[in-house]
């Protein structure tokens, strides 16, 4: 018993919990290991989005602006995993009736919470790489001036920050029945406010203010700078801010997660769906 309580054992137990939670939530959620489903959700749909907005953008402002839309939409793809994936990983427990067991277990809540998002950060990074790959392959995206390390870091940071937003939305999904409505709304609002398809400086001030308060905005700006030949030092402030925004959303999400747990236990509404 003494050994079981030692810090090393607790750490090992949390790592195991983190790994299993992350892995199982991913497998159970989207069955993305089924090749056709993965192909549709992660490869063809992103290609459709990139092509549509790039053609729309170039129709509006000319073929010279294609890179703007390709990069914007490729990075924005991180939100597929960050918003949909993470939210459904957390909310899925409620719908499948496992939430009471989860909240009844002695497992570390933070480990469970972060574990739900971890693999979606990786998945989001893969999504962005696929998006940029489509851009280079089909739309002539020139990445010859890109600093690979800076771009990798940007992708990691952006995937993390969108997952932070997803954690908050996931906690919200514990108390709302319209989780898909919220997810869809947020995803499409990101298409406007993140700057993936619009020059933010031309938007009204209030919309610019919203843009500065959400994930992705700085990640997309950073990716555009890096692919245009910028250095890591140039985008470092943007990346730091992006991490900060992701952390804020994740912390708000965790606070909500704990608060909902306490309230649900108090009111006996854990399994209300």
């Amino acid at each position, binding site marked *: 018993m003494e050994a079981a309580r030692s810090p090393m054992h607790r750490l090992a137990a949390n790592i195991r919990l983190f790994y299993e939670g992350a892995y199982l939530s991913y497998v159970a959620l989207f069955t993305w290991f089924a090749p056709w489903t993965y192909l549709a959700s992660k490869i063809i749909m992103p290609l*459709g989005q990139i*092509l549509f907005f790039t053609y729309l953008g170039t129709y*509006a402002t000319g073929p010279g602006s294609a890179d703007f839309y390709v990069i914007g939409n490729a990075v924005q793809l991180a939100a597929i995993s960050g918003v949909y994936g993470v939210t459904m990983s957390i909310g899925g427990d409620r719908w499948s009736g496992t939430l009471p067991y989860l909240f009844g277990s002695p497992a570390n809540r933070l480990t469970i919470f972060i574990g739900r998002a971890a693999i979606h950060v990786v998945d989001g990074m893969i999504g962005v790489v696929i998006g940029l790959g489509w851009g280079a392959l089909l739309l002539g995206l020139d990445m010859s001036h890109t600093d690979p390390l800076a771009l990798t870091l940007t992708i990691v940071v952006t995937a993390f920050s969108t997952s932070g937003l997803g954690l908050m939305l996931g906690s919200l999904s514990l108390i709302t029945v*319209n989780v898909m409505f919220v997810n869809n709304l947020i995803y*499409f609002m990101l298409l*406007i406010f993140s700057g993936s398809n619009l020059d933010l400086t031309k938007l009204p001030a209030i919309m610019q203010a919203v843009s500065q308060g959400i994930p992705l905005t700085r990640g997309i700006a950073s990716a555009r700078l890096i692919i245009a030949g910028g250095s890591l030092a140039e985008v470092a402030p943007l990346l730091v801010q992006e991490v900060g925004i992701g952390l804020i959303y994740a912390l708000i999400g965790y606070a909500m997660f704990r608060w909902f747990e306490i309230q649900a236990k108090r009111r006996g509404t854990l399994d209300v769906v």
Partner: protein
Amino acid sequence: MTGDDALSRADASSRNARKALARGDRTNARRAAFLALESDPTCELAWLVLAALADPPARRNYLEHILAVNSKSQRAINALKVETGERRMLERAHFVSRGNRSPDGVSAIEDTKPHKSVRTPASIVAKGAPNGVESSAAPITASFVRAKQNLVQDLRVVATSCEMALKHAATDSFIIFAVFVQPLIIALLGLYMLRERGGDYAIFVVVGSGLTGLWSSLLFVSGGALNQERWSGTLESLVGMPTSLEVIVFGKNLAYVTQSLGSMVLAYALASVLFGTPLRIAQPLVFLASIVLTTVSFVCLGLLLAPMFVANPDIRNFVNALEYPMYILAGFLFPIALLPGWTTPLSYVLAPYWAAEALHAASTGTAALSNIALDWGMLLVLGAAYVLIGRWLFRVFLRKARQDATLDFF
């Protein structure tokens, strides 16, 4: 034996047959009916008794034969209505066939009067269907009556299905998003992105984003409706109904596509209120006609999609991937001239492309009526093609789903 003797013997035998049927003596009823037909092959009452004794498929043949001999036989027409009618009607027919007294069934075989004909009982009984050269107009009349009855019945099902779908849609947040919110966001994006193009960009965006709503609605909602039935455990019941599944799907599609036209109205309001853009539809009547044809063609396109959802529930995982390709290939918000040349034939076989052409042209007034007429023609032709292919797919996939017993798999 004189002709009058034969007729009176047929009359007596057929009345005996009717009495036997009324008291539930099926064997003697059948025997007396055949006796009557030996004397007079056109004895209507005898045929009606045989129809009442027969199983549904054969019953229809008997009734059609009566109409072939006498196209005005009200009792045969009524009985055929019973045959082709809904379940309540079928139950009545079944009641008669069991020899019980049913008001409708008995009235259908009362007060009969033999009709003369040169047809032989052998040819009639052997083929079980009308075959008379001398009454060639009668089968056409019977077919017309049957077609009319089927059409009325199908329209009633379409209306009911449409009403139920609308009620469901009003409370489903996913549908509300797909039909109204998403097109509105795309409209907002389009208005900001295309603002620099000037000209009629606003009405172009309003129409284009509305079309994205129509397509997304058709793809997610109409397609998902069958999976919804599957999850609710009602798909098997729908498939087992006398009404064909495509008629029910048509009603659902009509509801969702018509409803999603509201997205165009919302986009119009957004553009005029938020952006303060003066919006004018250059050819309102042509635009209205284009809207009607667009709706019809989209509903028909839905008939092409639905069987795939029946065949494979996993197709729902693929619908996300089909949304943007249609936006692109149909040229909802930019001309397809921007796309590589090899994609043009793909656009041409898509009704949404012709719908976009017609609606953009009518709203901006940038095309002659003859060009728009071509778009209308293509909408009609493609709509008809979708219906024909859709019916075939329904038949094939439903048969396969029945054979594999996978209707309730999800």
